[in-house]
């Protein structure tokens, strides 16, 4: 850690943590008292709308970002009722650790002008449509009239923006500034670290009703001065124009700005959310900008899809994929239920992940290397309002009463949460977890899930050092592995603990843990398989149909160290853990029963008739519906760990600290079991970096600088920058890169146990190996060695 970069903090820091985190502190704030090198799970919601979203405003939502952050921290906020009056209110069952308000950026300016009585367009018809309380059958046309520009090829702002004296851009900026003020006011910069607000917004491209929606989440307060929406960026491609805007205004702007983009609702994308990239460069761009995908939210689950009536799935035979599915595959005119054999495969993330492996075999880069988060997408400011019991709905007056919930929104659900494994609850720490994909998604509950892969020396369930040892000789969820055990399968450790719940609503026991594997064979065909690795699918637990109380027991905790019996060291694969709770009553079951209709009753249909036509849906279930179930099996999905035959199989390294300043040395050897497509020292630069919170070593060996010494061996002819020696062997058994520095200043490499990342880049090839490095005999070395 360099003291210069830390100077600003010394004012605030009473005691800095002993070990540095693997990220730079970019903010003026106190380090957190709860800092933990081996990381804590933080629960959040990265997808929330307030009245600045035109559709939320139409749904009667009047709360602002400030209210959404207040809700996330435990405050009570008002909700719209059926008549768009703010007569309802609610608070969260337990506060969140972090949240991001992500309003639709497309119409920030128009909404601001329409809600400001002094604006010259206030009384226009377009503005009245936004503000008025319409009957339910008028709600959809009103929404379309406002949102249609997001669904056409050449989108433009609403006509009001062309009136003289009307400045929609200035109004848009003023909304963005309001959002920034609200986030700042909610962000705890003290050592308590009780809450983190993120700045962000939603890009809402919906060509012909196909959702290509994404949220952008910024690392810190160094955000672009204005927002980029589908309207401003459509000319550059969808979503390429948006990526360009984020690159230009943030990632490449040199302002300290950093961001991740998170696509969501691929289940409504008509197969278009994960299109093939044009080339390897675009694949790499996507992998870099979009490290995560939101796979669960109120408008359905996007992991995988199985139709229980047809007894067939969309690229899967996994029967647990009936979970919280919408019936349609997109919105707009083509948004009609499709038979499962016509359902677009890439609407589902698991299929995109599998295809990503095949694309990596072809292009050398995997465009679909997504970690997972869940969130709500609530349109009422209710960040993290995910409880199935007493759910207030999530979309203003669309689902503000039992009738509207059951009649109009039976297939929506209370949404999920995003969980980040981070050292502390600060923006830098959480953002870095998002960027490295060390996240998991839940369907709303809060189980704690660890997942590691690698050599995993000494890692055993029940060992108090499990987590430490796993970080030393493996990678956590979201990471990548080369052939770490030669021809043998890497080991995978998964450890889950049930949601502790609250006094009023104790968490549900766990039923089982699964590992989902996807892979591509030598012919380019993709496969998947689901393994039960812990727990018991037949534990007999269910609910008491008379009360919805859980019956029978499951596990408080489940743990397994597993290896893949189908492993082939030549086949690209991903592995993610899915943790299943025992069944509980779905939200709709609770609403139906309160209305006098019991989904479990043999005479459910008669009860529904008595309760009114709106409640007919209460009797949909496994017997007569492809997806709906009066029971819900809440679950968590960890980000995958990817096995890459051409990934980094082994890192041997040591930092030797000299007796005098400037006499430290680093020696490092990297082994790859397969030579990557883009490794060609004669024609491509080779970049090697070793990094903790600082760059310990960052060196690019220009193409042609490594001189061939025989057929397989390349060497530096003369020292290059910090490198005294560098040798690259390209042979039958893969690639090996060995470097050694001249005596130099390596004080950036902290002399304490901490995470270090070694990265290699060549052409479009990228690989990295992050491990806990430890101090042995005065030297800093990878811990798993």
């Amino acid at each position, binding site marked *: 850690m360099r003291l210069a970069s830390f100077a600003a903090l010394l004012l605030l820091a009473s005691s800095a943590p002993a070990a540095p985190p693997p990220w730079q502190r970019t903010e003026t704030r106190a380090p957190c*008292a709860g800092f933990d090198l081996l990381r804590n799970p933080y629960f959040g919601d990265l997808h929330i709308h307030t009245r600045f979203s035109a559709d939320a405003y139409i749904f009667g939502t009047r709360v602002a970002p400030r209210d959404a952050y207040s809700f996330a921290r435990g405050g009570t906020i008002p909700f719209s009722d059926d008549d768009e009056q703010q007569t309802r209110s609610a608070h969260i069952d337990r506060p969140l650790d972090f949240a991001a308000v992500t309003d639709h950026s497309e119409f920030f300016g128009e909404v601001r002008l329409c809600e400001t009585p002094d604006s010259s367009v206030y*009384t226009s018809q377009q503005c009245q449509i936004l503000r*008025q309380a319409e009957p339910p059958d008028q709600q959809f046309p009103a929404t379309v009239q406002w949102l249609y520009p997001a669904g056409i090829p050449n989108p433009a702002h609403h006509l009001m923006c062309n009136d003289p004296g009307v400045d929609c851009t200035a109004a848009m900026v003023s909304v963005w*500034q309001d959002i920034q003020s609200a986030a700042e006011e909610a962000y705890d910069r*003290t050592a308590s670290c009780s809450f983190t607000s993120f700045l962000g917004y939603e890009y809402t491209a919906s060509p012909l009703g196909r959702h290509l929606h994404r949220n952008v989440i910024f690392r810190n*307060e*160094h955000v672009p001065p204005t927002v980029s929406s589908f309207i401003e960026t459509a000319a550059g491609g969808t979503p390429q124009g948006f990526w360009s805007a984020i690159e230009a205004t943030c990632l490449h702007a040199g302002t300290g700005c950093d961001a991740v983009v998170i696509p969501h609702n691929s289940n409504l994308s008509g197969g278009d959310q994960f299109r093939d990239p044009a080339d390897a460069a675009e694949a790499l761009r996507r992998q870099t900008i979009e490290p995560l995908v939101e796979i669960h939210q109120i408008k359905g689950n996007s992991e995988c899809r199985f139709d229980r009536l047809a007894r067939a799935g969309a690229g899967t035979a996994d029967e647990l994929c009936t979970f919280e599915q919408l019936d349609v595959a997109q919105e707009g005119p083509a948004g009609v239920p499709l038979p499962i054999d016509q359902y677009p495969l890439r609407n589902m993330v698991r299929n995109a992940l599998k295809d990503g492996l095949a694309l990596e075999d072809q292009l050398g880069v995997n465009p679909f290397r997504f970690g997972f988060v869940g969130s709500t997408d609530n349109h009422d400011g209710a960040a993290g309002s995910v409880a199935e019991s007493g759910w207030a709905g999530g979309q203003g007056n669309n689902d503000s009463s039992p009738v509207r919930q059951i009649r109009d929104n039976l297939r929506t659900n209370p949404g999920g949460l995003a969980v980040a494994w981070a050292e502390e609850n600060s923006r830098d720490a959480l953002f870095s977890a998002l960027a490295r994909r060390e996240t998991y998604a839940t369907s709303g509950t809060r189980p704690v899930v660890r997942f590691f892969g690698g050599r995993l020396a000494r890692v055993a369930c*029940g060992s108090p050092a499990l*987590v430490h040892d796993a970080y030393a000789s493996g990678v956590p969820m979201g990471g990548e592995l080369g052939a770490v055990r030669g021809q043998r399968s890497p080991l995978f450790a998964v450890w889950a603990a049930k949601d502790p719940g609250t006094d009023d609503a104790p968490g549900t026991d766990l039923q089982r843990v699964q590992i989902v594997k996807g892979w591509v064979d030598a012919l380019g065909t993709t496969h998947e398989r689901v393994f039960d690795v812990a727990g018991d699918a037949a534990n007999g637990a269910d609910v008491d149909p008379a009360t919805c109380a859980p019956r029978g027991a499951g596990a408080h905790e489940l743990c397994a160290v597993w290896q893949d019996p189908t492993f082939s060291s030549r086949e690209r694969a991903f592995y993610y853990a899915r943790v299943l709770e025992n069944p509980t009553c779905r939200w709709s079951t609770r609403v139906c029963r309160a209305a006098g209709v019991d989904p479990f009753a043999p005479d459910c249909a008669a009860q529904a008739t008595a309760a009114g036509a709106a409640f007919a849906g209460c009797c949909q279930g496994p017997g007569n519906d492809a997806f709906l179930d009066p029971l819900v099996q809440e679950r968590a999905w960890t980000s995958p760990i990817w096995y890459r035959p051409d990934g980094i199989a082994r890192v041997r390294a040591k930092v030797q600290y000299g007796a005098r300043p400037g006499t430290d040395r680093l020696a490092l050897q990297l082994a790859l079991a397969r030579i990557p497509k883009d490794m060609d020292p004669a024609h491509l630069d080779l970049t090697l970096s070793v990094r903790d919170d600082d760059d310990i070593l960052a060196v690019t060996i220009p193409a042609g600088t490594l001189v061939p010494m025989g057929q397989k061996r390349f060497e530096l002819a003369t020292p290059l920058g910090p490198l005294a020696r560098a040798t690259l062997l390209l042979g039958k058994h893969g690639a090996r890169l060995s470097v050694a520095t001249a005596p130099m200043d390596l004080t950036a490499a902290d002399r304490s146990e901490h995470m270090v990342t070694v990265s290699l880049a060549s052409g479009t090839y990228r690989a990295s190996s992050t491990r806990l490095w430890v101090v042995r005999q005065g030297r800093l070395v990878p811990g798993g060695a």
Partner: protein
Amino acid sequence: VTDRVLRAPLLHFLVLGAVLLGLRVRWDAGRAGGERPRIVIDAGDLGRLREAWAEEHGSPPGPAAEERLVREAVDEEILFREAVARGFDRSDAAVRERLVRLAGFVGEETSRDRDVLERDARRLGLERGDLVVRRHLVGMMRLAAEWLGPDDRPSGDRLEAYLAAHAADFAEPARVRLTQVYLSGDVHGGALEADARRLLDALSRGPTPPEEAVSRGDAFIRGATFDATRAELERTFGAQLAAGVEAAPAGRWVGPLRSGYGLHLVWVHGREPGRTPPLAEVRGRVAQAWLRERREQREREAMDEMRSRYLVAVEAH
């Protein structure tokens, strides 16, 4: 430090907002004295207000809503007159552009001279009659009313005073540092309670120091040591354990405390009492809150001052 706050991007909000709207406005109190001008809301005005309300809400306004509508209409008229009195209608580019365009529509001459067109529009009274111009001027005046001047800097003294007055909003909760020895309900089953008591007795003899004691229990997924607030302990272990820790003396083994997972023996190393953080640690949040309140206060004061200079008559009541 004040300089740093003023350089912080968020605090430019007001100034920047005004600049982006193309406004160079500031608040000056008008001159008192002379006869107070009258503002009359007559039956026709009231009818129009009710109609507009009904169109938007589907039903006529109730008494409370009607009172608010009238108050807003009066305020709007005051703001409009004050804007004209300050010459905003002559200095603002957007207003002039609008007048030129309107004159182009209604004028008989097809003059290209913008000054002539603007003069024509004013002769026709369009700067008073056109809704767009009117609302723009009202908006400018509102911004002027909430304008924060050089006397409204969020200085250290002011923020200190604000923090002191709103200490509860910024308070840092107490923290506790502890080590726990965990006995898993899954592992110990029916013997859980007895095993926990036996282990507590064993650890208490001596007593066993916390770092040695951890391996005597089961591995816990969140680790053995915590530096946490009571709320964080509640979210991790449940209310029962959090309450037990709150009552636990430091420097000895206490328990067993129950969670949703099993039983826990706890050693409290120390506590950090709750406190109001110094301003330096919460400056951004305090400044945001201070500016928001100051803006609301400025607008209230300015509106009250303006209202005091008019006589208002609602003739339809």
